[in-house]
């Protein structure tokens, strides 16, 4: 399934899932497909803070380098350490085991500005 109904999306192709008070962030199926085989993930440290739209990491595929942009500002509370040794998880399971970071958002009302699955699907069709 390329766009999951239960997630919110950014125009930079990140997805967001609410888990109690924290937010899980990853890249969409479309984004990993565009990148191709991901072979390296550079992720932030826990406690690092980012403003909405900041680059919080870098993903490298065999053919390209791509920044990841945080869909809303917050403090990193957990990083997917599995990706350091197994970055291919992002290709294999972008919405599950391939998640990137968890954050404590500064202002969760910003969630309203993200795209619903339906809006993101439309956005992809326009791209």
């Amino acid at each position: 399934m390329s766009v999951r109904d239960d997630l919110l999306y950014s125009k930079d192709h990140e997805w967001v899932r609410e888990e109690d008070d924290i937010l899980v962030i990853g890249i969409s199926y479309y984004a990993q497909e565009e990148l191709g085989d991901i072979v390296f993930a550079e992720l932030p440290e826990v406690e690092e803070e980012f403003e909405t739209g900041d680059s919080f990491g870098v993903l490298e595929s065999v053919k390209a380098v791509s920044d990841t942009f945080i869909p809303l500002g917050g403090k990193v509370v957990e990083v997917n350490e599995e990706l350091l040794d197994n970055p291919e998880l992002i290709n294999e399971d972008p919405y599950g085991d391939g998640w990137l970071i968890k954050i404590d958002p500064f202002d969760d009302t910003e969630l309203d500005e993200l795209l619903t699955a339906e809006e993101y699907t439309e956005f992809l069709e326009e791209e």
Partner: protein
Amino acid sequence: MKKTPLHHTHNVLGAKMTDFGGWEMPVEYSSIIDEHHAVRNHCGLFDICHMGEILISGEKAAQSVQRLISNDLSKLEYGKVLYTPICSEEGGIIDDLLVYMLGEDSYLFVVNAANKIKDYEWIKDKAYPETKVEDLSDYYAMLALQGPESSNILKQLTDAELDKIDYYHFVEAEAAGVDMIISRTGYTGELGYELYFTAEKAEEIWQRLIKVGEEYKLLPAGLGARNTLRLEKGYALYGNDIDESTNPIEAGLGWTVDLDGDDFIGRESLLKIKENCCSRRLKGFIITGRGMARHGYEIYADSQKIGRVTSGSYSPSLKKSIAMGYLAEEYTEAGSKINIKIRDRFVEAEVVELPFL
């Protein structure tokens, strides 16, 4: 952008396309890594119709060719292929190419796509006026069938005795009912063949090979895998590792420069270059820290900038980040430690002997 005769085929296969030297070419069909392993372990089929073919024939053809190439033309006879640079008067590399001797006065140059027009003009200008120079690039389709199963696959379509074709040799034979040059060459370091035939038959031959190759686990492979495969073998890529600002000696292509034989364009400069060789050399290195080195990244040692990465990629076979670049003489020994500036970090790398694999 220019399209090969197989453009439609690539679209049907769902290939991701990219601009390569003005050509819209497939980067990958399924996954660069899968296509890479297919070539190393089974077989891959590449559309390389973008390559240029220039025929040099007629009177004084041999003299014209020897004047153009740095390698020794007397090594060539009918049925053999010669890899050689062509150089400027200053010894810079104008292109690297294959020369096929098709007959007594007939030589086919197979050149890089992005250089074809430049090469054609250079060759026309430097060849003897009585020699004929023709651009046959639109006439020829070119496919590369590469991998340990390539001979088993091609055997299904031809009676040519493939096992008797040595590396860097070719035969003119029929395959799948089409006259072609079957050349035991390639850019992957595996057993493989490059096939030249009329462009009209490109689709037909492609489909026949795909079909026959099915039981041998053949995959269509794109430029992404072509790049990782050649990099692991330390083969230079024109425009990345070599160009007019580099010479064959420092690029590790000294074996393709014959300074003892006949005169050729660039010989005098290369004699001087060789005498003082070299302040820098093209070397391979493995990134031992975390990160991927890419074309253009700066190389440092002892807090000095000592060069730039010319090619860099993830190596699917070694599962490491590998790269090449020109290094100042004092850092060229295997085991030397250097640093690559990756974004804002310095990542450690170690110089190794080429090839990587």
